[in-house]
């Protein structure tokens, strides 16, 4: 890394992003319709992609960036498939 990141900054990033994940999970659980659950799931996976990127920086592993890429691709395909299911049925 180019600089040493202070520990308090790591703590703030992790706490804020964990709170965001919990909020999106709550919407995915309590959503009134199935579409709300899909929206919550979509947001959840996007937030988790950002979390993988920060984890790649934390553990200093380049491989985890590839994990984030694959996660984004799979989340995109999954949301498209669920949207098609909501529109027409399988």
């Amino acid at each position: 890394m180019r600089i040493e990141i202070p520990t308090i900054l790591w703590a703030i990033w992790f706490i804020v992003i964990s709170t965001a994940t919990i909020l999106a999970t709550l919407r995915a659980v309590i959503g009134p319709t199935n579409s709300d659950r899909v929206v919550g799931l979509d947001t959840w996976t996007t937030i988790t992609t950002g979390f993988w990127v920060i984890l790649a920086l934390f553990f200093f592993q380049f491989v985890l960036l590839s994990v984030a890429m694959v996660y984004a691709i799979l989340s995109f395909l999954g949301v498209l498939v669920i949207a098609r299911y909501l529109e027409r049925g399988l």
Partner: protein
Amino acid sequence: MLNVVLGWLGAILISIGVFFLFLGALGIFRLPDLFNRLQAGTKATTLGVISTSIGVGLLVKGWLPFSVALAVFLLMTNPISSHAVARASYRAGVKPYPGTSPDECAKRNLDFSGEGEEK
């Protein structure tokens, strides 16, 4: 000197990105109906994850091409998936909440049976 400037620029970008990810999740949790939630949960989190990814690319030598590729991929695919979800749920009968005053899509006489495009 350049390392310090780029490093702190990356840290600031990651902080902005994390903040916008949190705002997206807050909008998902608080907004009244599906389409408002979709807007908050897609726009804000797209900016957040792009900013986070480019910040990480600036912080480490040699990671910038892959993180820019990740950002461009998310910038392309995230609006597509949100558009697909919005269209599908409008056709499936999810109504906007009453505060949405001009519901332009209702005037368009859509075929809600779900078989309009396959013929």
